[in-house]
Every structure is written in structure tokens, then in C-alpha cells.
């Protein structure tokens, strides 16, 4: 159990038998009464957000969550293969366990695999990834004040990302894996 005073960001807790991570919290202690911690939590299975207010006399159930380092080896249809860097063991995960992370995987990419009670429940790629534009309409001079964008398909997974209209096929872009958003164009041969 975690004590009320131990609440902090990234704490892994169980709520109704589902693992969550604390994304943010606000400690509120009026002079009159007990303290509260208003927390924002992310469901580690579904990714959904939850808001919950804990009172100072409540404790939180620990979630047995462990993050381990793996390397992405290859994809074989619906199966994604990762290798444990320490013991070279292979881990096979399905698309549903990967969620959106599967769009950003590249050979030998280091990732963090989340285990709950020893079962893999999610994969976290590095926060930014470099991908090449495989397909998009030709680049045009942009009126940057109006932030016009167009869709682009990124190699090798063909994931679609909204990009500025001056981007061309073959451009290398930096993408934020947490939001799936364009960050910037980069110089890369």
C-alpha cells in the first residue's frame, strides 16, 4: 500500500484491479480539515485518463508494474518480436498489446516494455523518432500564418501524420511518438 503522503508522478497503483500511473496530482490542504490529493491517472491497459480525489486517510494499492528494456527485432505479420538486451530472450507481442506504438517501430529500436504481474501490457518507444515521408502531395510554398497542413504517409509503417504543406516526399521528419504529431523537418541524407 502507498500512504497518502507518498503520492507522486509515475506512481503505479491499482484501482478496481486495473493498473494506473499517476500523471499529475494536486495537494490541497485547507486550514479547516483533512488534506486531499486530486490526481490524474492514466489506465495502463487502455490509455484512458481518470480523475480521482484521494483523502488523507486513504491509502493506495500498489500495482506490480515493471518496465524492462527490450530491442525491436522484426515484425512477422501480426506478431512483433522483441529481444531482451540482457539475456537475449525473445518476446512475441500482438498488435493489441502494442497499440499505437507499432506505427513507430524501427529495426533495433530500444523500447520499454511494461509488465503487470509478469504479463506484458504495453510498449513505450522513445519519445521521438525519425521517419521518412513515403507519400504525400507535392510541397507548396506555405502561408505559415494559417498553419495549413496536409496528410503524409511515413515509412516503413505507412502511418499517417499531419505535416506542413512545404514538406516533400523523401523528407526526413521528427515525429513525437506520444502524440503522433509532426515536430520538425530534419537534415538527414
Amino acid at each position: 500500500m502507498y500512504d497518502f503522503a507518498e503520492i507522486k508522478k509515475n506512481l503505479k497503483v491499482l484501482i478496481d484491479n486495473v493498473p494506473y500511473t499517476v500523471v499529475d496530482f494536486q495537494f490541497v490542504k485547507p486550514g479547516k480539515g483533512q488534506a486531499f490529493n486530486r490526481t490524474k491517472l492514466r489506465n495502463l491497459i487502455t490509455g484512458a485518463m481518470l480523475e480521482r480525489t484521494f483523502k488523507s486517510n486513504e491509502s493506495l494499492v500498489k500495482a506490480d508494474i515493471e518496465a524492462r528494456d527490450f530491442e525491436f527485432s522484426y515484425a512477422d505479420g501480426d506478431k512483433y518480436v522483441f529481444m531482451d538486451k540482457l539475456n537475449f530472450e525473445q518476446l512475441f507481442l500482438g498488435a493489441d498489446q502494442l497499440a499505437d506504438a507499432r506505427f513507430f517501430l524501427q529495426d533495433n529500436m530500444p523500447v520499454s516494455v511494461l509488465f503487470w504481474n509478469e504479463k506484458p501490457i504495453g510498449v513505450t518507444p522513445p519519445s521521438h523518432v525519425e521517419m521518412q515521408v513515403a507519400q504525400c502531395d507535392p510541397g507548396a510554398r506555405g502561408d505559415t500564418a494559417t498553419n495549413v497542413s496536409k496528410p503524409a504517409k511515413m515509412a516503413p509503417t505507412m502511418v499517417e501524420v499531419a505535416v506542413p504543406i512545404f514538406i516533400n516526399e523523401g523528407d526526413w521528419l521528427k515525429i513525437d511518438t506520444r502524440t503522433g504529431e509532426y515536430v520538425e523537418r530534419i537534415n538527414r541524407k
Partner: protein
Amino acid sequence: MRNLLEARSRLLQEIRLFFLTRSFLEVDTPLLVQNPGSDVHLDAFAVASHNGAHAGHLITSPEYQMKRLLCAGSGPIFQLGKCFRSGELGRMHEPEFTMLEWYRPNAGWNDVMNDTEELVATLAASLGVQELHTAKGSVSLTRPWPRVSVDEVFRRHTGKSCFEVSDEEFFERFAFEIDPHLGSEEAMFLVDWPAHMASLARIRERSAPPVAERFEAYIGGAELCNGFGELVDADELARRCESDRQTRERLGKTVYPDDIELIEAQRKGMPESGGNALGVDRLLMLLLGKEKLADVIPLPHAVR
């Protein structure tokens, strides 16, 4: 950092000057005590001797010690010192903070409310501040500060009387919905607490429903101080301490020993007094327009 140290140093010296020129004595009572106070919602740090034996607790406020001095004929006294509250860390909370606490014997809560208005005006002037600037806008310090009852504030916000709701609803509404808006345009005093939340304040005679002579000052949604027309009746003090002990036991909290010395001192006689406890760091935060308490503390908890 240098600017902060200069502002803090000026503030501490101006506070001393304010009280010394009004014939208060400065006192420095113990920080390591046996009974840190019976308040149900405050938890004290336990202190161990070098051999691991329990030595006492750090004070959550110097109230009990200063009241013993009042009973011993100290006259008006003030204390500028550290207080410690375990488990309190946040934007407006540090487990170790600086408290200004003062007592006027042969006076009442209106006198210390006046002191508070005068003190804040004096300190603002000495730091060259006319209006306070918070994230939500400016707050005027024009005197007199309005005094609004807890019930009126609660009614205005919820349409219900504060005497008709559970303690749970009372605390939650105040914490999240009401407190952040108090004193958002002008500094104000929240007065007349329901009697069962009197803490160590006296109950106002002939009040119905009974209310306590307890006040809190709010500036820009921040609680600045908590003061009382003090409870002087020794039997009532003993009764409240016992009630607090039972509640603490029921909640599974550490139960501190009763402060027999204070009860006995009040039994021998305590003058009718007004007292107030004010968060000095919070005051500096408001005067300098900072967002969080840690911004006005040179070595805050997070950095240690």
C-alpha cells in the same frame, strides 16, 4: 537568490519592528515538545534521541507553549519561528515553514484582526507593494477587510447552510470549490466557524446556532492566517483535547499525550485573549507575486 534573501530579510525585520514598537515581547519557545497539539488534521514529526529512543515531537504551532507564557503573565507576545507538519507538501505547503504567531491578553479577536490588516499594510508599504498581483488578477488591500461568515460563504456558493451538511461535504466543497475564490478581488476575513470546528477558539455567547470566534484571512484564494478569540476555560480545553484524542484513535493516527501543563496553567487563570498564527512564507509569496511557496524559500524541501 540575492533578491529573495534581501526581501525575506527585510520582511522578518519589519515584522519584528511592527510588534516591538507596539510593546510586544519577542519570545522563542521550544520546538521539541511532548505534546505537539491535538488537532485531528495535523501530524507532527517524531524525534528520536541518538540511541533511537523517542524524544518528543516537533511543534506544528507554538500555540500551547505561548499560552503557558500568557498564563504566567507575559503580556503581549509574538514569535517568529519554524513549524513542522508531516505529510504536507504542495504548491502552498512545505513541511517546514516560518510562522508568525502573536497573542494579546485582555483583548479579543477583533483586535488581532485589526493587527493583521495593519501588519499586512505596513509590510506591503515597506516592500513597495500597493496591490497584490496573483495569477488570477489583482487583489486590493483596502481597509477595513470585509468579514464574512462561513455560513454566508457556503450558502452563496451551494445554496445550502453549512450547518446542514456533513463534515465531509463541508471540507470537500471548501477545499475545491470555495477556498480558491475567497479574497480573489479584495483581502477578506472568513469568520464564525460552526462550534464543533472551533479548535481552541471560544464559542461566542448567545450565538445560535453556536459559532466560534475563529477567523481566517484570505488573499487571492490563499489562506494567510488562522486566529481566535482564545478559549480560556480549562475544563472545556480538557474536554476538546479528549474528544480530539478519541477521533485520532478512531482514524488510526498517532495519539499525543495531553498537555497537562497547559490545562493546569489555564486552570490557574488565563486572561481573555486574541491570538493569530500567520504563514510568513505565504505572505511573502503574495507580496512578491510568486506562484508557489517554494519560490520564496531559499532552500525548499524539494531541493534539499
